[in-house]
Structure formats: C-alpha cells, structure tokens
C-alpha cells in the first residue's frame, strides 16, 4: 500500500472542497495543520466536480483547484469531471 495525498490551503474556498473529498473518499484521512489541510488516502484519491458543486452551491471548474493547491503525490489524471491521484504499486 502506498499513500497518495493532496494538500490545500485552509480557507473559505477550500472548506466545501475538502468536505466533498471526504464524502467521495471514505478511506481518506484529513490532517488539519496551521494554514493547510493535508488529505491522505491509501493508493487512490478521487476528486469529483459534481460533489464539489453540491457542497459549494455553484458551478465549479476542477482547474480552479490550482489556486489553492499546495502539493500532491501520485500519478495525476484530470478531465472535466474528476481529478484522480493514484500509485501503481
């Protein structure tokens, strides 16, 4: 098992995004640190546009994540609906 993670700035914009990630990834563990939130998950983490929009109450372009992204690990794959982080091991 390998851990993938994503870290986002802790602010008003990311609060609903983090909620959405938790909903879509029941095995994810959220670490709240000063000014940032790091989310770890075993092998894979999926971020879904639709869940974020439901939490946010507005349309959301997944590329908006770029603004508040701090760091991530794993192989990235992004299309209009999902951003996936995955280790192949």
């Amino acid at each position: 098992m390998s851990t993938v993670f994503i870290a986002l700035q802790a602010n008003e914009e990311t609060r609903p995004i983090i909620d959405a990630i938790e909903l879509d990834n029941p095995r994810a563990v959220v670490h709240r640190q000063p000014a940032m939130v790091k989310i770890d998950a075993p092998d894979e983490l999926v971020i879904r546009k639709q869940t974020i929009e439901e939490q946010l109450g507005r349309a959301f372009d997944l590329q908006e994540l770029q603004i508040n992204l701090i760091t991530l690990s794993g192989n990235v794959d992004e299309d209009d609906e999902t951003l996936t982080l995955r280790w192949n091991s």
Partner: protein
Amino acid sequence: MDMKVEKKKLNLKDKYKLLTRDLGWEPSYRSKDEIYPYVKYEGLKVHDWDKWEDPFRLTMDAYWKYQAEKERKFYAIIDAHTQNNGHLNITDARYLTALKIFLQAISPGEYAAHKGFARAGREFAGVGTQVACQMQAIDELRHAQTQIHAMSNYNRYYNGFHAFADARDRIWYTSVARSFFDDSMSAGPFEFMIAIGFSFEYVLTNLLFVPFMSGAAYNGDMATVTFGFSAQSDEARHMTLGLECIKFMLEQDPDNLPIVQAWIDKWFWRGFRVLGLVSTMMDYMLPKRVMSWREAWEIYGVENGGALFRDLARYGIRPPKGWDDAEKAIDHMSHQLMLGLYQWSFGTAFHSWIPSDEDMDWLSAKYPATFDKHYRPRWNHIKKLAAAGTPYKNFGLAKLCQCCQLPIVFTEPDDPTMLCNRETTYKGEKYHFCSDGCQDVFEHEPEKYIQAWLPMPALFQDQQGDIGAWMDWVSLKDGTDNGDYAGSEDQRNFQQWRGLATSNQ
C-alpha cells in the same frame, strides 16, 4: 425573460489538444535535428513526442486566468502585511535567519530555474513539453519576484536582507544552492528535467516548502506564508511535470533506463545536500517549531519517496543510490551543520546562536538516539566558552566539498564520531568531498566539476585572504549582519519596537 443559455464549452481533453498540440507544425525547410540540436546529445531515445501530455491539461488561456488570480490574492495580503506592521508580529527576530538564508540562497535558485525552463522549452521537440516548460519558466520568474517583494518589507527594518544578490554570487554557503542550479543548467535538457523537475520538485520540494510555510505560519510571518502558498500552488504542476517527464523517458525506450537511473542517483544526492540548510532551519532557526527535520523526512522522504519508487519499480527504477546514506544522516545533519554555521558566524549574513536549555530539551526529545550523546555536550561546551567571554569562533576557513560545496562537516554514515572526508586525485590535483555520494558525482564527470567556482579559493584568489576586504566584496557589514543573535542590532530593535507597539511608551 430570456433564459440564460450557457455557451457550449470544449471539453478539457479537446481543448488541450487544440490549444497545445495543434499549435505545433512540421518544419519544411530545416530538419528537426537542426532545430533541436540537443535532443539526441545525451543519448536518450525518443520515438513519439506526442506521448508527452500534461495530466492537468492546462492550456495557456486558463494558465493566465489562474495565475492572475493568485497574484491578486498575493498582493492583497502583502499590502496588508506592510500596512499592519507585519514585521513586528513574528515570534522573535531569530526567525529572520531562516528568511535571510531563503532570500540569499533559494530565491535566486527560482530565478535560475526560470532560465533553465525557458531553455528546456526551447530545446525539447514536443509541443506539450514546450508549453509546460514555458508555464514553469514564467512560474519560476514569478516566484523569484514575489519572494523578493514579500521580504522587502523586512529589509526596511532588519539587517542581512540588503545585498542578497551579492550574497548569491559571492558568499560561501549560498554557493551550495547556486552550484546545484548551475550544474543542472549546464547539463542537457533531459538531465535538467531530472535535476529540477523530478529530483528537486518531486522528491525534495515538499521538504523545503511545506515545513517552511508551516514554519512561517507558526511564527507569525504572514508575508512568507503568502509567497510560500502562492509559489507552492504552482509546485503541484511542476511536480507532476517532473513525474510525467521521467515516465515519458522510461516508456519511450528501454535503453533510457540506465541513463535515467544514473541521473536519479546523482540528483537525489545533490538535492539532499542542498536540503542540509533546511534541516538547520527546522531544528534550530524557528523560535516556534513545526516538526523536526526527522519527522518531515519520515512523511515526505520515507513515506512519499518510498511510494514513488515503488511506483517506478515497474520500469526497473530502484531508489537512488544514496538513499541509505541519507537515512543514516537524518539524525545528525542539522546538528553538524548548525555547529558549523555557529563557529563560522563571522562570515554569514545572518545570525546564529547557542540553543537555550529549553531548545536542547526539544532536540533531545526529537533525536533521542543522537542529540544528548553527540551534540548537547558540544553545545554545552560552547556555552561555557561564551559565558567565560571567550566565545568559540573559528576564523579558519572551511574546507569545501568540490561537488556540493558545503563545508566538510558531516560524519561517516556508520560512525558519527568520525569526520567523513573523501579524496580523488585527477590530473595531478587533489579534490575533497564530504561523502561517497559527492565523490561519485565528481568521478562520473570530473571535467565538469574541476571547473567549479569555490568560494574559499576565490577568497584567496581575489582578496588575497583579506577577510575585511572579502566582507566588503560580499556586502556583509561586520558586527551588524553577522555573528551571534544575542547582542545583535536585530535583537535590540525587535525588542524595542515590539515594546513600542504593545505599550504607550
């Protein structure tokens, strides 16, 4: 009332294709070999450049939009920092030592990376690669500028910030980072990508930026949190480019494996040595500490690096050659390097200090196997000397490693009581190294490293060994910028201004 109809948008994959790969063209009156002369120079075999794709599928139009938003956020906070006496809100002016090292050694590295990516974008033959390198070149330039701008407010009040460009070119400890970037920029484009895109960005950048920014947040430094986050928001893209780049090289041809592995070995060790400076920052320089260097290594080195190399094992890649030696060094390096910085503090454009008893208790809890046994007795001895009015100063010049350019202060991987020193004789000249890793790098490319500009020999060459003249040359103000924090002007000013800010005196 008319219903608002959303304009039909291209999906991300089509948009990426149209606005990236379709921007390329087939040359008709010059050959590709003439246009991209360095692509084959390193022995890498590439069969299909279109296989290189940015997994974020970021196109230039979206890039400008998001970068502009980052800049707006950044400047809103920097203005607030300046307007609200941000320079007084830090925990303690000792914290500024970490910032000074960052400004003198790391921000110029961002600028160097900008030049390197501009060049890599020109030399790679694939459009996806060219666009990604162009974005990263602009990012790195932005990082250098925003960092210098964010720290300029501290320069109005504190010492040691005023001459970072001279420090970058001339002072001894900055040459560690400078030689790392110069080494990468004078390599071919693929090696540059492994050096910066993969080794520095992917394997090591988390160890630099994440603890540094959390450290700034813990220590009340809003300006640095802001430039850190603004820069770091680009790093995820850089890391991804670095990882894609290495997968691309390995998937293009099996013959690329040994070349790539050798670069991983080299650049992991080069990067690890640069991070020695970060280890001292985390363990010693932050008045309010985030986590120890050991703890950061566990998360970002062992756990994340381990996951990465398990993933790359499918291509035949193994962890970097110096990995085990790095692991053995983790519990020693920050202490050894900080002892070095303290004894040579006459020659640093930042302050260092003897850790307090409370600091030492923290270090002993974080390094139970090493601190009390090897390092507390040394600090206690140094403390006694300072109390007796004979502070420990080493006015001799450090012997530098010909490869990483750090002073030779580290110990043998398996014996922390024995200084590690390696020598190689090449064309009748003797060269010194701090480790097997650095010696290996040299022996693989001796003609490159015998040309290294080393600050200590330069002192004798250009200044005849005159320390005062050297200080003028590096724009270091003796008695103001350097030496012990205790009794410094930075300490006096901070205490006085903070007193004024919190009382009605």
